[in-house]
């Protein structure tokens, strides 16, 4: 366990060096979040009764989404991993006495976390002081706040476990391009990064809830703003755990099968 922790820490500290990039990112995300809220306001003014949540709840959702964008971004994939597969340098990795799956997992989690750590606080603090109803409010209750933290970590791990499957497919196909594009679009849309899941038509929402996508950023943010409450909260966190286990186990299994017949690209 210790060696994976060090991989994690190395990547984390490297990521934390890019402070100027973080500053630029923060201002971009701030403008982006603001525009998104203004767009929703137009819909809200047209018909507030068709809105699935209150505007305050939506504001909290959007700002959390911007603050923790790096945790849940759909487009991030570690190019080093894809390169090591296509160039053949994966052979070196295989010689090391480490489990490849856990190492990749730790590295991916660390990069996402380092970016989020630098960015989340400034965004949340500024967003808290915006005029109502555009500000981020406190969690719906103390319990919601606590469960939000747990669920946020779980959702993050579900996403990393899901992206591991994309890396592993590259072991089979060698060209990650196609699957990567499809996965990015699917993650972005079905996790609710474009419009929050409660805005989806009910029939499509029912399907999305059968997939892992609904248990990534959707669950923690909706717990925070009180859209999910009561025993529903525990149920959705439990489902997050189930998905995490499922994705992790299938990733491990597929990796093991792939490595048995991996062909190292020479050169």
């Amino acid at each position, binding site marked *: 366990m210790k060696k994976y922790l060090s991989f994690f820490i190395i990547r984390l500290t490297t990521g934390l060096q890019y402070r100027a990039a973080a500053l*630029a990112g923060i201002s971009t995300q701030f403008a982006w979040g603001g525009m998104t809220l203004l767009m929703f306001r137009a819909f809200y003014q047209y018909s507030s009764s068709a809105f699935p949540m209150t505007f305050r709840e939506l504001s909290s959702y959007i700002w959390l989404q911007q603050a923790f964008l790096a945790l849940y971004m759909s487009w991030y994939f570690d190019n080093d991993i894809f390169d090591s597969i296509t160039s053949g340098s994966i052979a070196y990795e295989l010689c090391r006495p480490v489990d490849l799956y856990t190492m990749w997992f730790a590295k991916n989690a660390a990069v996402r976390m380092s970016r989020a750590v630098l960015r989340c606080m400034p965004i949340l603090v500024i967003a808290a002081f915006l005029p109502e109803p555009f500000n981020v409010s406190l969690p719906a209750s103390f319990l919601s706040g606590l469960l939000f933290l747990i669920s946020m970590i779980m959702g993050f791990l579900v996403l990393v476990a899901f992206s591991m499957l994309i890396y592993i497919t590259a072991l089979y196909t060698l060209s990650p391009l*196609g699957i990567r594009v499809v996965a990015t679009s699917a993650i972005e849309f079905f996790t609710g990064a474009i419009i929050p899941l409660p805005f*989806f038509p009910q029939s499509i929402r029912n399907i999305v809830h059968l997939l892992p996508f609904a248990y990534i950023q959707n669950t923690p943010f909706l717990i925070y703003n009180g859209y999910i409450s009561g025993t529903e909260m525990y149920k959705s966190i439990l489902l997050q755990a189930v998905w995490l286990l499922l994705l992790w186990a299938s990733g491990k299994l597929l990796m093991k099968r792939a490595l048995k017949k991996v062909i190292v690209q020479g050169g």
Partner: protein
Amino acid sequence: MKLYLKYASIILKSQMQYKASFFMTALGQFLVSFTAFLGVRFMFARFNAVSGFTFAEVLLCFSIILASFALAECFVRGFDTFPGIISNGEFDRIMVRPRNEILQVLSSRIEFSRLGRLLQALGMFAYALHESNVEWTFDKILTLILMLTGGFFVFAGLFVVYAGLCFFTLEGLEFMNIFTDGAREFGKFPFSIYGESVLKFLTYVIPLALFQYYPFLYLIGKSDNTLYMFLPLLGMLFVIPCLLFWRFGVRHYKSTGS
């Protein structure tokens, strides 16, 4: 111009060497904007209209901005990837050649796979054409063409500014994304829905609304002001200060030495 066409045909040929990769990337471009379309579709399943615009009208607006963005990204991509040219020192090579730098940067990269987005725009346009009740008289068609060219030039100008900033910072500024990718994302709705102040900003500072909102009102018959039809021409002038800024940047250029 002849030189540019020669460059373009060489790039097209080289990209066609990897046909599978080319179509995959084009498909990816298509998918990315397709999810944006689905988002709009779902919102309109819940709300019938927004700020007085119907679904078909919004799609018309979306397809126009997406098409002009796709064209700009396809042909002005050299400026979009300019941070790379600066940091690997390729700009030194460009400077010593006896040709215009802008032409060379322009023709350094032409991304034909971006036309996947254009395909998506065409699809939406076809649908909107069918659903919205715009009467396609001569002036409406002219408005549409002006909107597309105006959009192309404004986006091109933004890419040039983005590249020009690299002379000072050596790397791309993420903040510019809000005006390029952001304009594409948020421009799917007429800019008026974001409120008065955003509209003013996009009229007087970054003239995105000049080719999107005002002529669009004329296009769908919400306004009779013929002046609105020609506003994209005014928006095109935006490219001049952008190019001046670029010139200014070139004079300040210090090689990275790599």
